[in-house]
């Protein structure tokens, strides 16, 4: 059943206006789409990062649900504690209703700084959802490269010039790293495909035990594009197979959307200023290498899906 926007829009937005995200911010769209499904009986634990900074500038908060921020590295540990406290209260009969526990962090707080806390919480088996909004660099501190930054991207710590052509390493495949923990549910989503994203959030929240969703979240500031293009660029990432939409449920891979005619990855790259230098003659090989890696990963995913049937 597709989600009905008419119904969803009747509820008050749980991520209020007045937050200080830049115009056209992809992560802010992701927050709204997640919260529209999660609903008000939700506790959110946050890592340091753009969405934390812009949503809770003292004395204001954009959150209309209980929200807790501690540090960059421990969103998963914090939500583990909250969930454990909830279980204890439930055991004592002091609380009864179902509450969703969601930890949210960016790629910096997930791929890099928070991976240890995340891995621990997954292994301990807390009943929670972890959402990574992946904008592919440390944006709130000024666009530094992260483990999620793709090959060839210009950032302030992988500056494209005569010495290096942007980031020289490929990115981590975090969704697969998380899935390798053997948790009941892991998925990848994009706000351009909002219904797919919402279905994944719903499934994840219904899952008993840890669930994880990695959401691509374009950032006009750090990717260097005009703010109205955010959703178009998210969609191109899916249509070029750079960001496959899929889920891993109890170890079984399923691709939730297969573009009928995948586009060359160049079409996604050329929309973004951070890849502009790749179109110079001397850097062309990086685009080819990029395409090769995208193909390789897509084929691997197809094999994993086939093996799951």
């Amino acid at each position, binding site marked *: 059943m597709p989600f009905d926007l008419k119904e969803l829009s009747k509820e008050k937005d749980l991520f209020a206006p*007045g937050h200080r995200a830049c115009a056209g911010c992809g992560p802010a769209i992701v927050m709204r789409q997640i919260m*529209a499904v999660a609903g008000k009986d939700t506790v959110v634990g946050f890592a340091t990062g753009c969405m934390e900074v812009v949503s809770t500038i003292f004395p*204001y908060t954009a959150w209309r649900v209980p929200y807790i921020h501690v540090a960059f590295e421990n969103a998963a540990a914090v939500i583990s504690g909250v969930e454990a406290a909830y279980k204890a209260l439930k055991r004592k009969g002091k609380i009864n209703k179902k509450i969703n526990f969601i930890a949210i962090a960016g790629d910096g707080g997930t791929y890099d700084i928070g991976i240890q806390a995340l891995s621990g919480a997954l292994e301990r088996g807390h009943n929670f959802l972890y959402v990574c909004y992946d904008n592919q660099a440390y944006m709130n501190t000024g666009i530094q490269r992260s483990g999620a930054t793709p090959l060839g991207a210009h950032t302030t710590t992988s500056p494209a010039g005569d010495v290096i052509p942007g980031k020289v390493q490929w990115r981590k495949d975090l969704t697969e790293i998380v899935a390798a923990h053997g948790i009941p549910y892991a998925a990848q989503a994009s706000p351009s495909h909002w219904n797919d994203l919402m279905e994944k959030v719903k499934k994840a929240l219904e899952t008993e035990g840890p669930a994880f969703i990695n959401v691509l979240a374009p950032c006009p500031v750090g990717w260097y594009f005009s703010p109205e293009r955010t959703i178009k660029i998210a969609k191109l990432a899916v249509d070029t197979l750079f960001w496959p939409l899929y889920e891993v449920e109890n170890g079984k891979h399923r691709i939730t959307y297969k573009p009928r005619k995948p586009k060359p990855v160049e079409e996604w790259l050329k929309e973004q200023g951070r890849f502009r230098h790749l179109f110079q003659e001397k850097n062309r090989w990086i685009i080819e290498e990029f395409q090769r890696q995208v193909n390789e990963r897509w084929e691997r995913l197809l094999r994993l899906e086939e093996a799951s049937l």
Partner: protein
Amino acid sequence: MKEGWKELPIGAIIKEAGSSIKFETGDWRTRKPVLNKEKCINCLFCWVFCPDSSIIVENGEMKGFLYSHCKGCGICAEECPVKAIEMVKEEV
């Protein structure tokens, strides 16, 4: 915020949910969205894609924009399937 530091809750606790709405971001805008009601089919794609919770919907009907907070990104105009939203230069 009128209280001095002595009245503030300790531990950076914010007691009022969604208080950010008191902070108006509408003056960030350089372009503003304008709705053509005749064309609109109420698909609400603008609502689902707005980063600033600034599309006003009542009973499933698109009513316009929360200009006090809309930052003028233009995503709604870009994503509207029937081109019912136009971005115009903001007058100061």
